[in-house]
């Protein structure tokens, strides 16, 4: 589907401070194409911050996020091809990679609290499509109507988006992100406000998006859902990356005490 890709993405010593408080501390991991990464962790662990950092909405306080260059023909990045470290020191605190500025045009995000423009549901989609997809109005309209139908919003297309119910807004946000056909799709608790039937259908949509080649990076508090959707799990706790495992391993055999307690619903505040 994509001639070139911004994946893989190397995240190195990523951290984020606000007023001397360390909210994200020294995350190092990579995101590779083809797998569904679920970011789990208790409230306040830093999941949403991590997604926003990855999506380029916040400038990291330290560390780097290196997306592959989508304009270069794809090649498997070996360690040798990566920028040779100048020395063995960890990166300076405020040395922010140029590359974290990767245009959002290859990515899309469904926010935990989606923001709707003061227009109809359909106009919200039109707006997003007009920003990213050039020319061809008819094609854009087809795509809009198609995602509206897929997310069950056709009936609501002409309603002002901000007056929809919270669940309807969440579906509209998914439709909007999906319509953009991103290479990487960030989903921040996309089914938190959905009814059981809608949750099932949205899971199916996520699977379909994944199958079409889009990288999924998602958070959820629904462990069953995580189990159903994940290839790999990144478990965050108090801003730290505590564990990174394949899905099955994480659920059957968590390495850390925090993850084990979390899975049992016994990680208390």
């Amino acid at each position, binding site marked *: 589907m994509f001639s070139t890709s911004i994946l893989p993405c190397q995240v190195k010593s990523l951290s984020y401070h606000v007023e001397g408080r360390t909210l994200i501390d020294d995350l190092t991991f990579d995101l590779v194409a083809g797998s569904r990464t679920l970011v789990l962790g208790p409230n306040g662990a830093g999941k949403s911050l991590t997604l926003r950092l990855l*999506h380029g909405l916040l400038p990291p306080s330290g560390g780097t996020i290196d997306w592959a260059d989508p304009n270069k023909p794809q090649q498997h990045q070996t360690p040798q091809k990566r920028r040779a470290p100048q020395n063995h020191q960890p990166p300076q605190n405020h040395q922010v990679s140029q590359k974290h500025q990767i245009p959002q045009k290859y990515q899309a995000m469904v*926010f935990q609290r989606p923001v709707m423009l*003061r*227009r109809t549901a359909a106009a919200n989609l039109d707006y*997003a499509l007009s920003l990213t997809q050039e020319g061809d109005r008819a094609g854009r309209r087809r795509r809009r109507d198609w995602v509206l139908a897929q997310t069950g919003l056709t009936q609501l297309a002409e309603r002002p988006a901000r007056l929809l119910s919270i669940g309807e807004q969440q579906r509209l946000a998914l439709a909007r992100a999906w319509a953009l056909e991103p290479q990487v799709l960030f989903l921040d608790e996309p089914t938190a406000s959905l009814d059981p039937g809608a949750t099932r259908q949205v899971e199916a949509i996520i699977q379909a998006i994944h199958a079409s080649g889009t990288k999924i990076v998602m958070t959820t508090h629904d462990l069953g859902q995580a189990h159903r959707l994940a290839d790999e799990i990144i478990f965050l706790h108090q801003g730290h990356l505590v564990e990174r495992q394949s899905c099955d391993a994480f659920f059957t055999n968590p390495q850390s005490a925090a993850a084990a307690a979390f899975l049992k619903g016994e990680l208390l505040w």
Partner: protein
Amino acid sequence: MQNELTVSSTRLAIMNDIGQAFLTAFKLIAGWDRDLAEIIGLSLQVSLIALAVAAAIGLPLGAAVALLRFPGRRALAVLLSALMGLPPVVVGLIVYLMLSRAGPLGVLGLLFTPTAMIIAQCLLITPIIAALTRQIVLDLWSDYREQLTSLGCGPARAIPTLLWDARTALVTVILAGFGRATAEVGAVMIVGGNIDHVTRVMTTAIALETSRGDLTLALALGVVLMALSLTINGAAFLCRDWADRGQGRLAS
């Protein structure tokens, strides 16, 4: 005793001035004299054109100062805010010097024409519109920033979006600009010259009647101007309500 009586009757007379002014205003409007129509027409023409130009510059400028990051952005914001306090007489003087026959734009022969008044009013109200717009757009941007950025909409592209989505609040900003334009006398007096049948507008006419000592007529003209202003503001409110129906505001 005698004195007291005289004083209090004069006092009554002065209170009457204000009642009298309303009566005169009513007669002026009812009588609808050609001269008055001419003055009102010119006032509206000058202020509305100035407002249109100022809005066309001030709205995007204010939004740009709110959204774009460039060196001196904060300084520009402070400057715009300070320019809300630009004295009309100073604006009048600057435009006068520019348009004066000996000035750099003298050849255009614009001094003492309605065009000169439009230019002066524009200079006066553009900073007001820009500074207020900046604040309103900034508030909306703090809601929208992450979502729009995520959609691939940079700050520059966000300017029209935010202006559109903040349209309700911006109507008030524009009305503030309109109020300043119609109320203003210092600048248009200098660059327009208050020339009868050419550049006389409501406010300069009011100033003239005041200096003639005809306070009743001056006040009456003020009442007419306020009636005009009320009509236009009322119309703007109705338009806004009409355009607002159901858009994003919860029924209550």
